[in-house]
């Protein structure tokens, strides 16, 4: 009896049951009924929104990786102006809610440059928002290669290219991956805010389906589940990589 309470699997099953019981309680407490059939015709819309969410998240990831690396380079530049610029930008971004970033980019910054393409501006807002976080990931990954290793590279006479190609970058990528996965998870969750620009991602699609079917409870729960379908495997993948690739 006592050993079953010590088992990890049992603990997880129990935790899952608790969660399901909580969900059942929430559903039963709603005034409207729970009917999945009404939203069934909209499956393809959800599927398409699901992939759009993944698509813009990956674009944001790639964009913020590039911009984050540029920010990193500017932040270590010998030109003080660049350091200050990045510092200031980082402070502003850290202090800005993502929703505010999205509307300011789409409705103020974009139009100032003559651009009204909300899909592009929305993704740009996400990229701007994530770049300082990416910059920090690069910074800590590169710092984690200790001074002594550089000394060893020097002693054996590696060229600068060889140092980066065979020793520094392979390590940086390993260190980078887990926080990168976590950032991707942040991006996916943040992309829900693009609904204010009518971009057809998961949140927006859900609201549209709800307004057509009045299935509010079902709509929110399905949307919630779809986010978790992406983020939970992602975070476990990050943990796996962290364990496997740790140096």
């Amino acid at each position, binding site marked *: 009896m006592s050993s079953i309470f010590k088992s990890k699997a049992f603990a997880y099953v129990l935790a899952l049951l608790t969660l399901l019981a909580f969900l059942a309680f929430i559903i039963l407490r709603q005034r409207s009924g729970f009917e999945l059939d009404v939203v069934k015709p909209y499956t393809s819309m959800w599927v398409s929104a699901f992939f759009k969410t993944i698509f813009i998240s990956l674009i944001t990831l790639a964009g913020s990786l590039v911009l984050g690396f540029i920010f990193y380079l500017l932040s270590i530049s010998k030109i003080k102006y660049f350091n200050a610029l990045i510092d200031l930008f980082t402070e502003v971004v850290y202090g800005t809610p993502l929703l505010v970033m999205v509307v300011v980019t789409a409705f103020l910054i974009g139009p100032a440059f003559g651009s009204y393409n909300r899909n592009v501006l929305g993704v740009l807002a996400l990229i701007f928002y994530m770049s300082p976080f990416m910059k920090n990931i690069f910074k800590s990954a590169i710092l984690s290669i200790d001074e002594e*290793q550089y000394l060893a590279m020097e*002693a054996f006479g*590696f060229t600068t290219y060889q140092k980066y190609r065979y020793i520094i970058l392979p390590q940086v990528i390993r260190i980078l991956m887990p926080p990168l996965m976590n950032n991707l998870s942040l991006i996916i969750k943040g992309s829900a805010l693009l609904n204010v620009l009518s971009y057809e991602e998961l949140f927006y699609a859900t609201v549209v389906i709800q307004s057509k079917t009045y299935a509010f409870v079902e709509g929110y729960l399905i949307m919630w589940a779809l986010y978790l379908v992406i983020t939970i495997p992602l975070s476990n993948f990050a943990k796996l990589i962290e364990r496997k690739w740790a140096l």
Partner: protein
Amino acid sequence: MKIELSNLTHIYDRVVIDDCTLDIDGYQSIAVIGVSGSGKSTLVRILSGLEAPTMGTAKVNGLEVHSEEHKKKIGFVFQKHNLFPHLTLKENITLVLEKTRDYSKAEAQEKATFYLDLLHLQNQANKLPKHVSGGEAQRASLARALSIDPDFIFLDEPTSSLDPILTDEVLKAVEELKGLGKEFLFITHVMSFVKDFADYVIYMDQGVIKEHGEPSILTNPKTQSLKEFMEKVR
């Protein structure tokens, strides 16, 4: 090994090596001893060409220490093993040989295997540094230093991060290498090893070479400084 120092001075934010002059010749394994911060590491790094002195000159076997020709002759073993953590012990050696010494893949493999065997690491060859003990990692570092066919092996406190048992294991490995015909310059705090292995001793204190000579100076120190040092390390 022939070492010539002439008014060698090195300054970081303070004077680390203070106007050292020395001319010795004909010794195979030279120990550099002294308390922490006495300038030993800096001296060895300058002699290996890893660091350029602020003033003065240093030559080893007649070559300027910053010359590429001299640098290629040195195998360096650091305080920490400094193996590249993402590569196995064997890959740590083959990477160096293939990229910096133009070996073919097969030659590099063969050589890496030979030196890992020599240091009794055949069973650890395909493990990452984090999966072997500190002593094994340090021996692998020694194998890596040997693999480039250096004339000199420089060791900068190779056992300072190891417990006494592992220290013994690494120092025994170094002693076994004496027959390879290499010349050694090493820093250590293990005086029994100095007495057994060194045929010349340089004692440093506050950036100055206070005393140097054959290991007998350790039992009959001339300066008060070395006398006090020997009392402390005993």
